C-alpha cells in the first residue's frame, strides 16, 4: 500500500493546537535559558580573566567540562542524577513545580553558558589591553573597568557569534523532549503516535524551527552589514 500524505490533518484542529503549544514551550524554555546563560556565561568569562588563581581554575574547568560532554547526557544527569546532589529543600521545591521544565532550563543554561563564556572571553581579548590599563589608572576597580569600559565595547563585536550561540540553544532545546518537556519536537512525536503521520508532523515542525533560524540569521546579517559594516558573502 502506498503512503498517503496528509498535511491537512497535522496542521488543523486539535493537532495544529498541539504544535502551537509545543512552539510556545520551545520559545519559552529557550527565552529563559538565553537570559540565564548570558548572565552565567559573562560571569564565567570575567572569572576566567581575573587574577585569582582558584577562580580562574574553576571557570576554566567549568567551560572545558561542559563543552566536552553531550547535552543529552547533561540533561539526563540533571533529571535523574541531581536528586542526590542537591539539598532536600531544593528538591522538594522543584518537585512541587515543573521539574522537567526546570531541568531543561538548567541543562540548556549551563551547556550554552560554557560556549558563551568562550565567545565573551575572545571578545574581551579583542579589546586592546591598554583600555583596561587606562581605566585602572583612572582609578576604576577591576570590576568597574570591566562593567563600564571593556564589556560594553566587547559586546559590540561579540553580538553576532553570541546570537549564533542562542540559535544553537533554540535548536538544542529540542533535546528536552527526552525528559518529557512538551516542546515542539515532543508534540511532533505525539502526533506521530496518534496519527502515524510522522513524516508530515516532522516536516511541519522542521519548518517552524527553520523559520526561527532563518529570521535570526537574517537579522545577524543585517547587524553585520549596518552596524559592523562587514559585507557577508
Amino acid at each position, binding site marked *: 500500500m502506498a503512503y498517503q500524505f496528509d498535511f491537512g490533518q497535522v496542521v488543523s484542529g486539535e493537532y495544529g493546537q498541539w504544535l502551537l503549544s509545543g512552539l510556545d514551550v520551545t520559545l519559552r524554555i529557550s527565552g529563559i535559558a538565553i537570559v540565564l546563560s548570558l548572565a552565567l556565561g559573562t560571569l564565567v568569562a570575567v572569572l576566567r580573566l581575573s587574577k585569582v588563581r582558584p577562580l580562574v581554575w574553576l571557570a576554566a574547568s567549568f567551560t572545558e567540562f561542559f563543552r*566536552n*560532554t553531550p547535552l543529552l*547526557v547533561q540533561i539526563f544527569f540533571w533529571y535523574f542524577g541531581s536528586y542526590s546532589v542537591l539539598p532536600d529543600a531544593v528538591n522538594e521545591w522543584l518537585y512541587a513545580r515543573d521539574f522537567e521544565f526546570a531541568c531543561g532550563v538548567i541543562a540548556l543554561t549551563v551547556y550554552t553558558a560554557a560556549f558563551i563564556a568562550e565567545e565573551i572571553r575572545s571578545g574581551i581579548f579583542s579589546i586592546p589591553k591598554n583600555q583596561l590599563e587606562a581605566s585602572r589608572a583612572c582609578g576604576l576597580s577591576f570590576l568597574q573597568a570591566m562593567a563600564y569600559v571593556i564589556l560594553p565595547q566587547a559586546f559590540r563585536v561579540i553580538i553576532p557569534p553570541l546570537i549564533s550561540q542562542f540559535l544553537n540553544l533554540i*535548536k538544542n*532545546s529540542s533535546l528536552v523532549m527526552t525528559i518529557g518537556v512538551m516542546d515542539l519536537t515532543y508534540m511532533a512525536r505525539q502526533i506521530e503516535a496518534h496519527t502515524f503521520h510522522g513524516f508530515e508532523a516532522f516536516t511541519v515542525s522542521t519548518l517552524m524551527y*527553520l523559520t526561527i*533560524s532563518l529570521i535570526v540569521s537574517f537579522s545577524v546579517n543585517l547587524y553585520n552589514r549596518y552596524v559592523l559594516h562587514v559585507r557577508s558573502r
Partner: protein
Amino acid sequence: MHWDTVYKNLDYLLIGAYPQGPLGGLAMTVILAVGGIFGAFWLGLGCGLMRISKRRRLRWPAMFFIEIIRGTPLLMVVFWFYFLAPVVFGHTLPEAESALIALIVFTSAYIAEIVRAGVEALPKGQMEAARGSGLSHVQAMIFIILPQALFNMIPSFVNQFVSLTKDTSLAFIIGVNELTKAATQVNNRTLTAPTEIFITIALLYFVICYCLTEFSRYLERRINRYQARGR
C-alpha cells in the same frame, strides 16, 4: 554513593553485550562517530566545492542544502530519516544505519562550510598561478588548492569530530544501543545509582572529547608555526 553498581556494569557501558550479543556502549559511539566523520568528509567536500562553484545550478542546490540543515536541530534530522526511510524504501532501516545517515547528512553541511572557508582563505594568486601554468580549473583545484586548504582545515575537522562525538548521543532517541542508551538501560535496571552512572558516562565522553580538543589546539599551533615560517 553506589560506585560498585557502575563498576559491575562497566563492561556493558564500554562494549555492550559484545561477545555474546550485539556490540553497544562506548564502542558503538566510537563506530558512529568515526563512520560519521568519514562519510561527512566526502559529502561535505563535494557540497562545499559545489557551494563555491561559479555555476548557479551547482551553487544553489548546495546553498539550499547547507542553509536548511544548519537551521534545523539534529534531532529533527534524525527523526526525518527514521520516518522517511519507510516511505522511500518501503521497509524500515535498522536504527544504527538510519542514525548514521542522519549524522553524516547533518555534519556534512558544517564540513561544507569549513571547506568553503578554507578554500576562500587561500590567496587568490594560487589559483591564478595554477591556471596560468596551464592546469584546468579542476586540476588546479585537485593538485594546488585542495591540498593546501585541507591541510589548514585539519583543526576545524577535529573540532567538528568532537561535536559529532557528542552528537552521537542523539542516536539513543531512536533506539541505537550506544553509550547513552547503555547508561539509561543500566539506570533502569539498577535504579540505585543514577548520579554515579551519568557522571561516569559524562566523564567517558569528556575524556574522548577533551583529548581531541587538545589535539586540535596542538595541531593549530603547529600549523600556525608552519605558515609563519614561509613569511
